[in-house]
């Protein structure tokens, strides 16, 4: 019996290890491949990306996946960082789109969530229900309205066309309301008895209580927009303004070495957030686990 238990544990651990390997591989490979020199990459992947790069003598027949570079080289990074400013520009494009969205969305949402949290009533439940529906709508539905408004306000092909709808996206309102409902009512009551104004209760009692919630939502919103593709494709016609997420897919095969380096640079911000805030992320996901408030 005990032997069977042990065997089961070993099997389960192995299964978990296999899954873990599968989950980690793509990320790790992207990183290690970014440390290979151009010649090494052509030697390994020449067959995959031949259509554009010139065939060379070192080219392999098939692609051999290399996990560890023969010789660690930072040449790709040097090229990206110092010789080709267009990548850094696209990285900056991503930053300047995403950071305002995250900050403003949280600000607007915190106020709205506070309102949903403090005041209930038929009207509020209907509105909240409405926010949930809107939150679940895919881009196929929301982008047509977004494109129309961009035309009306003459912001088509500007960053505002992406930032403004992002600021008012209902996701954080929904999640923050759920977090706020866990604040003990006695705290609010006590502040009210002290004669605090609503604004004061909001900034001095409610927000400090929600600090970790705000952080977990910020992570979720950040990763969502850092990864965006649909909005810039439709709302920005100018290739110069595209964020790195879209631009990466247009780097052609001839520059595969650079592409790996850029891809790695691109995942650094989100991975750092993850390493720092995994617990918050888990908390945020857990709270999204039901559509009701």
């Amino acid at each position: 019996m005990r032997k069977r238990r042990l065997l089961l544990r070993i099997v389960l651990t192995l299964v978990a290890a296999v899954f873990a390997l599968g989950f980690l591989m793509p990320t790790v490979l992207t990183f290690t491949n970014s440390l290979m020199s151009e010649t090494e990459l052509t030697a390994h992947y020449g067959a995959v990306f031949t259509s554009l790069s010139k065939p060379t003598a070192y080219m392999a027949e098939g692609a051999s996946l290399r996990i560890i570079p023969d010789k660690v080289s930072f040449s790709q990074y040097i090229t990206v960082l110092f010789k080709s400013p267009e990548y850094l520009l696209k990285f900056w494009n991503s930053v300047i789109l995403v950071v305002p969205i995250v900050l403003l969305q949280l600000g607007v949402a915190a106020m709205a969530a506070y309102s949903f949290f403090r005041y209930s009533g038929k009207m509020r439940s209907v509105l909240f229900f409405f926010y949930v529906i809107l939150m679940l709508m895919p881009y196929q539905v929301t982008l047509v309205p977004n494109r129309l408004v961009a035309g009306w306000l003459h912001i088509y092909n500007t960053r505002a066309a992406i930032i403004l709808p992002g600021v008012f996206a209902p996701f954080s309102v929904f999640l923050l309301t759920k977090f706020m409902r866990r604040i003990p009512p006695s705290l609010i009551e006590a502040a009210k008895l002290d004669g605090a104004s609503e604004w004061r209760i909001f900034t001095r009692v409610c927000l400090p209580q929600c600090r970790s919630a705000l952080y977990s939502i910020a992570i979720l919103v950040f990763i969502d927009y850092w990864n965006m593709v649909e909005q810039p494709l439709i709302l920005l016609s100018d290739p110069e303004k595209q964020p790195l997420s879209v631009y990466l897919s247009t780097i052609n095969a001839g520059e595969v070495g650079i592409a790996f380096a850029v891809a790695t640079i691109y995942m650094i911000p989100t991975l750092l957030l993850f390493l720092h805030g995994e617990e918050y992320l888990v908390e945020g996901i857990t709270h999204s686990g039901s559509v009701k408030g």
Partner: protein
Amino acid sequence: MKRSLPKNRKAGSLKRRERLAGSAFLWPSLAGVFVFFIVPFFVVCYYSLINNPIQHEFVFLKNYVALFHNSAFLLAAKNTLTFSVTAVPLAVVLALVLALLLEAKIPLKSQFRTFFLSPMMVPVASVVLIWQVLFHYNGVVNDFLAVFGADKIDWLQSDYNQLVVVLLFLWKNLGYNMILFMAALANIPRDLLEVADIEGASRWFRFWHIKLRFLSPTLLFVTILSLINSFKVFREVYLLTGDYPYEGLYMLQHFMNNTFGSLDYQKLSSAAVVMAIAISIIIALLFVVEGRFGKDVEG
């Protein structure tokens, strides 16, 4: 009586002032939602019912009829549905397997959780290159399969191309679903499981008759959430294959994107409305499910 009257009125006005202040907090968000989503959506509905933005002639359902005769739209709808039917069950079952794995007595649990969750934080654009190296005609997967004597195929240009995207979808989404299941598993009353243990219930019995019963609302929730996520899979496909992929990967968002190119608002609007209706039906389902089971698993 006389004395209490002004007091009451004061209390009443205080209440009203409070309510007004409360609404003030909602205003910024509500105004934005109206301007950027609600009002234009009504205009979209209107556009879907007229012949063109210049004449504004009311044509009722003509645009919808045209849409359902549009071969590109039908192909996109079919592909999107096929994808959902394959990807969603896998996304649910495998996520549950992962959650159960992490519940079992295995070493390095928290590390495993981190590993399983990590793809969620990696932008798809970053790993697309690796996917191409893996599934190219001369790629690694073919080399590997050749060991078993399989023929080489160009995965992304073949009938198996959806499989490649399903893998990417699972890689990205399993972690999120897994966390939802883990939360639900943690909510199962411990004493119930302990009693079952003392009574000598088998592992299998405990899973089917206790755990699964408590998990059923989460199971449905995750299913519907994954279904909604599967409609968003365009992102992965676009990054892998661009605007015009091989037939099996032409998704609804491709149809929208390419229609945006020609700015055919009638086609776009009717497609958006059809999608909105379809998603609303799914959401209604979600609410019915929550209403029925949600009470046991609030949290």
